């Protein structure tokens, strides 16, 4: 426990000094603000960029606030996830290359504490970013259009949080198992893309998959997901998370021999 808090303090300082704790949330907040704002100014933007005949009247229906929140989530699924994967791809693999690992691994190190300290810090930054981004999007949507019911919004963001923690776990597992950060990012993105593709091709009946989490999050803003399917999805996500974390700890221990001295 003492070792864990020492390692967590190290992770905290590292995230503070490489500014991850500042710049990742800022990116998510910008993504959250831009979506409602660009929808609000869409008529002016169309007007300014031209291409419409003189005197044409554009009648755009106001987008539903729920649609805007789902669009913000879509941005997080693309750019946000890419940023998170690239930011944390090197957290274990990079340490083996830049010498930090040499300082750590010569001590009697608990690899459980080692992996979990990284996992806790990365998840905290990811959750901070996602919630800050969603709240910024929620606020702008409420000011410019109308508010989504706050209870529905909380359920939506909470469900999406489970998904983002799962993604962070996958990145750390990849970082522990791969020889360098680039390959770790490649493995994570390939796994996410291929599994999502398989899911959209064959998965219309797979209601219990972790890949359904973003869909279930979005449906909280609509009629709400099926409670049984959601419960099984959450249980299965927890199992996936535990498996990935266990394998990550095992790989972190096994790959210590690859450390550059």
């Amino acid at each position, binding site marked *: 426990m003492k070792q864990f808090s020492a390692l967590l303090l190290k992770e905290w300082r590292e995230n503070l000094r*490489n*500014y*991850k704790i*500042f*710049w990742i949330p*800022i*990116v998510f*907040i*910008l993504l959250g*603000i*831009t979506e409602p*704002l660009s929808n*609000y*100014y869409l008529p*002016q933007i169309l007007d300014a960029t031209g291409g419409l005949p003189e005197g044409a009247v554009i009648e755009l229906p106001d987008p539903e606030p729920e649609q805007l929140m789902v669009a913000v989530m879509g941005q997080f699924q693309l750019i946000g996830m890419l*940023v998170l994967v*690239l*930011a944390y*791809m*090197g957290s274990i*693999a*990079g340490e083996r*290359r*830049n010498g930090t690992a040499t300082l750590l691994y010569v001590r009697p190190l608990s690899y459980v504490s080692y992996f979990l300290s990284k996992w806790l810090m990365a998840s905290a930054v990811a959750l901070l970013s996602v919630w800050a981004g969603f709240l910024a999007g929620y606020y*702008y949507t409420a000011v*410019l259009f109308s508010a989504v019911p706050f209870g529905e919004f909380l359920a939506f963001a909470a469900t999406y949080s489970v998904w983002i923690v799962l993604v962070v776990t996958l990145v750390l597992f990849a970082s522990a198992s791969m020889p*360098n*950060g*680039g390959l770790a990012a490649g493995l994570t993105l390939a796994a996410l893309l291929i599994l999502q593709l398989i899911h959209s091709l064959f998965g219309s009946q797979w209601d219990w998959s972790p890949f359904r989490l973003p869909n279930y999050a979005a449906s909280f803003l609509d009629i709400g997901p099926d409670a049984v399917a959601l419960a099984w999805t959450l249980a299965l996500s927890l199992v996936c998370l535990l498996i990935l974390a266990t394998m990550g700890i095992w790989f972190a221990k096994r790959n210590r021999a690859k450390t550059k001295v």
Partner: protein
Amino acid sequence: MLDERTILLVLPILVLQLALMIFAIVDLIRNPNPNGPKWMWAAIIVLLNLIGPILYFVIGRRNY
């Protein structure tokens, strides 16, 4: 078109982008060994809004 309301709405975006740029520039100045020439990264950070600082933090910092 640039009425007070628009400015108030867009101001947070400008402030946040400026903050991101400042974080990246401060880190670049203090970085002894960036992944490429410093003047190039300075130009990328300042000229490319939003993408520039992200590129620097992800690629230029050599933390992988």
